[in-house]
């Protein structure tokens, strides 16, 4: 019923319905999916199981009733000419009661399965998301965002279908098949054999067609992917197409892809569409064969051939014939459903792969960040409320702790790093900074500036050397505490759905409105925010698309400022924002850097010139290091860079 409406709007998933194969791994996945479902719904599932059995039996009863009706009531009445309907009325009443039980069970079954299916999905989604949040940045580097998304949309969706409808359906079909088969055997063994053989033929044909259709479906998916890619690329460049009058050429290319898609889609659907009529009419064929064979047996009852079949009455035969549909229909359902179950398992596999991905490790960490207070003696003491002073709580070997004031002093010594093995990007980085200093990183694209900042907050772990933060090895500091102590403004600005205020508050969840506004004022964002339609309450749509690049950056700076972090990592924007907005952004950045230990990936002369330490990088190495004056005096790379950008 409408429960099977496909919510996943992307291609793939439910389309490939036929001909998939079970492998050893799929059985593992089956067990895991079942484990997931069963763990929390043992009782519900038992009730569901009982309900399915009862429903199948009642359905069968209603079917078999035809025989009882004709043989036990109508025929005798016709023969005797009796008009006493009381026994029939009684039988019908009894039937009504049984059927009523069936209806109740059927509702109970459906209703409970909703809780089981949706509940499992809810748990699955929560687990999936919680796990994803724990994955290291590396994971997101290595996996296309679209692929991660499709786990949530397509794969979880196919699982929804499988748990919510395929599995219950296969289940109830299997029970119906078993019960019907048993009844058929009771009614007539030879007829049952005939039906069995023919049903096997039906299953075989369905599988064969399924395999053929699967081939076409795969090529349809490929062509669909190609044409989607083409549309995306061309429509993104639509304005270029217009300026180069390239319309006819692109239409021609599109038509080719479109035709390829049409022809594979046609083939896939053609084969798939044939399955239903073939199954339906094979079942008609079985009916006729059974009728003829049954007729022979019934009419020659007691004959020499099958003497034990003397009990096959006309009523029995009629009932048997009715049972045939009851038997073949679920068989054809199951053989079609099996394929969608197998395809759903492929989705389940991807879900579990994501859930099994290794999370960020924090094994060696022992140091915590705590609020601290300076006592009268000048010593630091741990405090239970926000004091604005933070300290590292470092454990001693004897189990006691000592506090180290958090100042934001970062030292690199001999640091080597590579994102992927065998491709080292940082070589032997040595860098000593003092608390409160501004450190500017300069150098070309790929020099390793961003990488250095990503190591400080442990987005990545280094392979060699050490990084000390306030003289503590950063691997000893709990990762979340380390990150909490560092404010960060990334080059690519990402904002979240919510109001401007919500986005600023992201930097400090318990910040009051006043604190957020103060932060905005500090970084020069206040005026433009007031100019927005609803001021601080202006809702931001997808990633702040309704703001300009510079405005989004200002909000991101305010977001970092509201937490008032003692140390900062900044990535200056290079994108072309106009000079006046850029000036505001620049001033915003200058304000927040003031008095804090700052690592800044600098693109502007003024930022660089005002830094305490300028680090010139090239191909993953520090080639020069010092103040503006010192480096100019060196007449090296920095000198070259600096003069190259003076206006001729």
């Amino acid at each position, binding site marked *: *019923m*409408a429960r099977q409406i496909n919510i996943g709007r992307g291609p793939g998933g439910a389309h490939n319905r036929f001909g998939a194969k079970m492998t050893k791994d799929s059985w593992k996945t089956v067990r895991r999916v079942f484990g997931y479902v069963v763990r929390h719904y043992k009782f519900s599932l038992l009730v569901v199981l009982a309900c399915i059995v009862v429903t199948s039996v009642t359905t069968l009863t*209603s079917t078999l009733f035809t025989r009882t*009706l*004709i043989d036990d*009531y109508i025929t005798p009445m*016709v023969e005797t000419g009796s008009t006493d*309907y009381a026994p029939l009325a009684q039988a019908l009443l009894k039937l*009504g009661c049984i059927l009523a039980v069936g*209806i*109740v069970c059927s*509702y109970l079954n459906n209703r409970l399965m909703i809780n089981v299916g*949706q509940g499992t999905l*809810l748990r699955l*989604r*929560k687990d999936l*998301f919680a796990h994803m*949040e724990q994955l290291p940045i590396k994971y997101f580097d290595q996996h296309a*965002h679209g692929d991660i998304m499709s786990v*949530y949309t397509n794969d979880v969706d196919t699982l929804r279908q499988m748990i*919510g409808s395929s599995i219950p359906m296969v289940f109830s079909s299997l029970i119906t098949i078993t019960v019907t088969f048993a009844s058929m055997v009771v009614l007539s063994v030879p007829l049952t054999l005939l039906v069995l053989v023919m049903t096997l033929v039906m299953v075989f044909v369905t599988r064969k067609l399924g395999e053929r259709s699967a081939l076409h479906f795969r090529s349809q998916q490929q062509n669909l992917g190609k044409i989607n890619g083409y549309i995306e*690329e*061309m*429509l993104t*460049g639509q304005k*270029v*197409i*217009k*300026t*180069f009058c390239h319309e006819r050429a692109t239409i021609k290319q599109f038509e080719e892809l479109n035709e390829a898609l049409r022809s594979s889609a*046609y083939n896939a*659907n*053609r084969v798939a*569409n*044939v399955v239903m009529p*073939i199954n*339906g009419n094979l079942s*008609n*064929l079985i*009916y*006729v064969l059974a*009728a003829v064979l049954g*007729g022979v047996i019934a*009419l020659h009852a007691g004959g020499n051939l099958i003497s034990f079949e003397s009990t096959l009455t006309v009523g029995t*035969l009629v009932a048997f*014939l*009715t049972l045939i549909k009851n038997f073949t229909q679920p068989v054809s359902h199951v053989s079609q459903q099996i394929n969608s179950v197998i395809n759903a398992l492929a989705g389940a596999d991807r879900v579990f792969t994501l859930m099994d991905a290794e999370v960020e490790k924090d094994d060696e960490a022992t140091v915590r960040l705590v609020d601290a207070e300076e006592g009268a003696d000048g010593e630091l003491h741990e405090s239970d409320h926000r004091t604005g002073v933070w300290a590292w709580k470092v454990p001693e070997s004897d189990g006691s702790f000592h506090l180290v004031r958090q100042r934001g002093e970062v030292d690199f010594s001999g640091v080597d790093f590579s994102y992927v093995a065998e491709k080292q990007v940082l070589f032997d980085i040595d860098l000593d900074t003092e608390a409160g200093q501004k450190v500017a990183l300069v150098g070309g694209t790929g020099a390793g500036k961003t990488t250095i900042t990503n190591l400080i907050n442990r987005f990545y772990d280094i392979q060699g050397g050490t990084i000390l933060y306030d003289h503590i090895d950063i691997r000893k500091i709990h990762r979340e505490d380390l*990150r909490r102590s560092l404010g960060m403004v990334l080059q690519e600005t990402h904002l979240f759905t919510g109001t401007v205020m919500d986005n600023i508050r992201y930097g400090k969840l318990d910040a009051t409105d006043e604190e957020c506004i103060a932060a905005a004022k500090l970084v020069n964002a206040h005026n433009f925010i007031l100019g927005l339609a609803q001021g601080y309450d202006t809702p931001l749509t*997808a*990633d702040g698309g309704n703001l*300009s690049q*510079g405005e989004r950056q200002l909000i991101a700076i305010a977001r970092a400022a509201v937490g008032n972090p003692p140390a900062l990592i900044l990535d200056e924007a*290079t994108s072309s924002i*106009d000079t006046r907005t850029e000036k505001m952004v620049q001033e915003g950045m200058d304000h927040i850097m003031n008095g804090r230990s700052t690592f800044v990936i600098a*693109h*502007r002369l*003024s930022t660089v010139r005002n830094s305490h330490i300028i680090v010139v990088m090239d191909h993953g190495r520090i080639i020069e290091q010092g103040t503006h004056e010192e480096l100019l005096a060196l007449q090296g790379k920095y000198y070259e*860079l600096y003069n*190259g950008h003076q*206006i001729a």
Partner: protein
Amino acid sequence: MFKTLLRNVGDFKKSSILTPVFTSLEVLMSTFIPYVTSWIIDRGINAGDMGNVCLYGGVMLVLAFLSLWFGIQAGRNSAYASTGFAYNLRSAMYSHIQTFSFSNIDRFTTSGLITRMTTDVSNLQNSFQQILRASVRAPLTLIFSIFMCVFINWKMSLIFITAMVVLGLSLYLVISKTVKLFSQVFEKYDALNNSVQENVQAIRVVKAFVREDYENTKFRKAAESLYKLFVKTESLQAINHPMMNLVVYGCIIALSWFGAHYIVGGELTTGQLTSLFTYVMSILTSLMMLTMIFVSITMSAASGKRVVEVLDERADITSPADGGLKEVADGSVEFSDVSFSYRQGVSDEDGNITGSVTRPALQHITVKVESGETLGVIGGTGCGKSTFASMVSRLYDVHSGVVKVGGRDVRDYDVEVLRNEVSMILQNNILFSGTILENLRWGKPDATLEECRHACDLAQASEFIDQMPEGYETHIEQNGTNVSGGQRQRLCIARALLKKPKVLILDDSTSACDTSTEAKILDAFTHQVPDITKIIISQRIQSVQHADHIIVMDNGEINGFGTHDELLRSNPIYQDIYRLQIENGGDFDQKK
């Protein structure tokens, strides 16, 4: 809406008509079958006549084979028709989009257009197939079955008709309610997926601020509210099945009771009773199917609407009816009192256009550039620089005033001729997947390697192309992600130069090149292609300072006009920009 959609059935009309025909024949056959089975029972088995069993069995087999054949034909034709329908829709949309002007494109977002061409078309394909087959099958089964019932025994048919009305009404009630709930579910579902997407994209922000737990809580809340709505919707739906059972069982009991009376009374045979049992099932199942079609049409109506929106959009820039001028006399450009405002589509979250706003972009612009001169345009974001340039190659039409190229109104030219002579390099430098050479040849399809080299020399692109292992055969990834921003810009300039235009417009096209490269490019323009009129739009003083004339734009108006020196003396905005860029800062970026 339906008219526009149906027009696109096109060549696949034959199949679209054959499908329902074959389907009805299939239904006809399969409806006769239970009737024949009753003959087998009555005239064959009950009468003890083996000959009749075989005879009617044979008839039934023939019917089954016919039904199979018709079924296969219907399946084949429906596949052909529906995939063809989708094919036509995609083609029609794509070619239609190609006629769109910039303002048409602005009305729909790019991502909106992509969804319309992919997901929405797939939805329509599925419903079209379903409608072709099921919408005929279900009502026909219904009608045939009722007819057969009436034929067998009209008095008993009253039972069906009552049952049908009861079931039909209640199904309608339940389903129309669930459809509404489902659309809410979809919204919540999209919102949930958006929040996942946001997290995947902004994972660095989440981690930098240690907001994993916060995001978890947010997600849990969203997931739980989706869960509640889903359970509510499905619970409502769960009534359907038991309700159907209730009606079916009611029918069976009623049929048994009255059937027994009629048989005893001699008005009905046992075989006919069995057939009636079969028909009651097919009547009620087809009712169920009808409601499903109803759901499917409701759900795809939204897709249909969005597709039609694209197809019905009228391109607002076209060549003059008589074909227009085929020749551009020279590269002179003249604006006289030109004003323009953008009409922007306002769309909701699904990309449906809900209204439009206008925002003035150019006001009373008058300026003249002689052929071969260089014009610089400078100003902040949103000041109207790009709009100004777009008017020259008629990417947008003026609202008042006249833009002339080569002494004639741009609206008098054949659009293609004009755009080939006025080559514009857009702000978003887009390359397409393919080799460098293929990309360059967008400018001139039959350009020789020599011509391409020459253009690349001018654009200062030869050096890095020659350093690439495969040179001009180097494959460019989609969006040109495997070359740097500066390289992309230089390739785009070379591509535009290959057109050998009379007017060349650079919209912020050297912003990612370092100063010395930019200077070389501008120098090559001045000395090697002196005949081309150059319009250079930039935010950087050094890009425009050597131009013959410079326009300072502010809020869609010309704030200053003159040479670098003149403006430096007299124009406050120009002075301000100069001070910020040259005295105070400058760009400390090594952009290679």
